[in-house]
């Protein structure tokens, strides 16, 4: 094992990619600190400047109505449920206004697969946002939503993306990826698009010049092999012209869900994070998830391959619905980056530095 790890370390040093077998062996057999040291080595090579970035953003969940009914989700409601909601445009503008007032640069708008909301709803909304807040970058609608909107509007993915772009959509978040292996998806989210359609939306978004991100939700029913497969599928999309700026692994939160079970532990999170850094040599940034892991572990994650702490998230509802409600202020975020020995910097969605602290 030691000589195998040494060989992998030498290869990674030169930027050579791991293959699936190597990645799986490292993931299953290496201990936490061995994995961490390999990932930290890659992080140092890709980000030698010792800067850790974050974006000031707000998650606006325009609706919780969703026809997908994923078994791991505590957020969705049926249209007829008492606590189903759809935000009005005015409510959304007010939320964006608060974001602007706090120096935010990114709006992350995601909701559910609402049966009534077609392309015109989003065109209208995005135009309204762009007109009022031209300085805000609109990073919205996961591939799952885009696919749904295209379908109920009778459009191809390409046409839907094109029209959304015209209306002011700037960038596409990588939600809904869960585990990009259909056997797992069939168990945790049977009515959600399969891995190939998720990929196709991201490929088309890249062709149209959208920056994108990729995520993975792990800790539900997947095996180690599925985690590895997910990472390689992301890497392969990127190789074929993908525009992923960042990869964000986070853990399934079992509270209030149909699927139930227990959350992945801190050690499991750090191992997956580190493996992501090792495999995804063609994706520049790896984000730590303080939303699911808390501030303390997110700080430690900076030694396990992460170089970005995601957003300050003035608002977050989806993870909170599953009983996980870590909150963090910008000041705390800055303090924890400094405390780990890095220089904190606020960035834009496309990773341009706004300011150092």
């Amino acid at each position, binding site marked *: 094992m030691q000589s195998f790890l040494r060989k992998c370390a030498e290869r990674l040093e030169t930027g050579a990619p791991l293959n699936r077998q190597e990645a799986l062996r490292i993931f299953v057999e290496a*201990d*936490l*600190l061995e994995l961490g*040291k390999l990932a930290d080595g890659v992080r140092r090579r890709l980000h030698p400047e010792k800067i850790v970035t974050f974006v000031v953003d707000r998650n606006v969940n325009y609706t919780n109505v969703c026809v997908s009914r994923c078994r791991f989700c505590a957020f969705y409601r049926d249209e007829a449920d008492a606590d189903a909601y759809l935000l009005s445009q005015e409510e959304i503008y007010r939320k964006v206004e608060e974001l602007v007032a706090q120096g935010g640069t990114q709006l992350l708008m995601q909701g559910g697969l609402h049966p009534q909301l077609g392309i015109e709803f989003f065109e209208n909304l995005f135009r309204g946002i762009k007109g009022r807040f031209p300085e805000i970058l609109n990073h919205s609608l996961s591939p799952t939503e885009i696919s749904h909107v295209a379908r109920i509007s009778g459009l191809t993915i390409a046409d839907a993306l094109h029209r959304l772009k015209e209306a002011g959509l700037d960038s596409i978040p990588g939600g809904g990826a869960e585990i990009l292996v259909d056997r797992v998806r069939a168990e945790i989210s049977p009515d959600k698009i399969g891995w190939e359609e998720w990929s196709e939306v991201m490929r088309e978004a890249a062709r149209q010049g959208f920056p994108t991100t990729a995520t993975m939700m792990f800790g539900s029913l997947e095996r180690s092999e599925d985690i590895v497969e997910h990472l390689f599928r992301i890497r392969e999309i990127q190789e074929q012209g993908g525009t992923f700026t960042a990869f964000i692994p986070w853990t399934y939160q079992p509270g209030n869900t149909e699927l139930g079970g227990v959350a992945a*532990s801190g*050690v*499991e999170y750090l191992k997956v994070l580190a493996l992501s850094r090792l495999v995804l040599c063609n994706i520049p940034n790896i984000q730590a998830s303080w939303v699911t892991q808390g501030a*303390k*572990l997110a700080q430690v994650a900076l030694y396990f391959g992460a170089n970005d702490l995601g957003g300050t998230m003035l608002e977050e509802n989806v993870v909170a619905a599953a009983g996980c409600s870590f909150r963090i202020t910008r000041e705390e975020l800055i303090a924890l980056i400094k*405390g780990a020995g890095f220089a904190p910097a606020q960035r834009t969605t496309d990773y341009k530095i706004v300011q150092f602290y």
Partner: protein
Amino acid sequence: MISFDSITDKVRTGRRLSDSEALFLFESEDLLEIGELAAFANASKNGRRVYYNVNRHINYSNICVNHCRFCAFRRDAGEAGAYLLTLEDIRSRAEEALRQGATEIHMVGGLHPDLSLPCYEEMLRAVKAVSPRLHLKAFTAVEIDYFSRISGLSLREVLLSLKESGLDSLPGGGAEIFAPAVRSELCEEKISGDRWLEVMEEAHRCGFRSNATMLYGHLESHSDRVAHLSRLRDLQDRTGGFQALVALPFQPLNTQLHSDRNLRAGGVDDLKTVAVSRLYLDNFNNIKAYWVLLGEKIAQVALAFGANDLDGTVVDERIGHEAGAESPRGMTRDEILRLIGSAGKEPVERDSLYQEILSR
């Protein structure tokens, strides 16, 4: 010239680290390398075994004549939220603990203005009356010193009298940080570090085992931490009475310190502190990752940084939670087993004296 290599060499050959070497490690940013070294030191003592126990905390009162600035638990007598458990309360909590399979009661409280030594002895007897098999770990050195002052008895007399009433061992609280300048800012009314060590030395001489703690992440420097650990290591050389070191990160919420400064140890500092404690305290067998204050996630990760003990089920923790600890108030055995197992370690249920409990 101290270097990471020279320290590695010492650790690998089982030689003791100096104070300046411990300081070097605290100042270093090589978190994972320090962790690996600490994991080596731990493995050579404990292998893959990680201890836990099934215990229950009982905080008999939050009324305290001291006003430590880092504490969110204390109340004045008569203040809203002030409480003193009755003997019946204590008994019923101990009974519940016994039913849930607890082997230990951890009982601490504040320095109550009105109770006398016999009152505390009655608390001990109330627990022991539930079951003599419940190990009673109770009263910090600060409380023991207070009992001596209110009773006019010597430390030794107090300790022996408590032993008579059922006290089995002492927790390690109240050590905070020994450095006098910081201590007077944090808790000027509390006994000095010298006195804390004196109480512990006497307790060890009376045949009690105890824990040792260090409260960090407030106003102290790295040198203060090393000086603190150094005093503990010296006393351990003399008595061998400490079972475990528990490094406690300061929790700022609802304390007087928080309004002064926005302070809180990060996970990196937590792990480094565990690791340096393991490396420097070569005469301590056990380094505890106290999940209540570290959070379950960091406590679990700490098992890869030299810790070999996760503490216990706790059930009803109050002191850390009043100050904003984000962990649950208690954990089940299954949750603890899962944390240890998914860290790749072997869980071992222990009793309060670190003997393995083989079957239940």
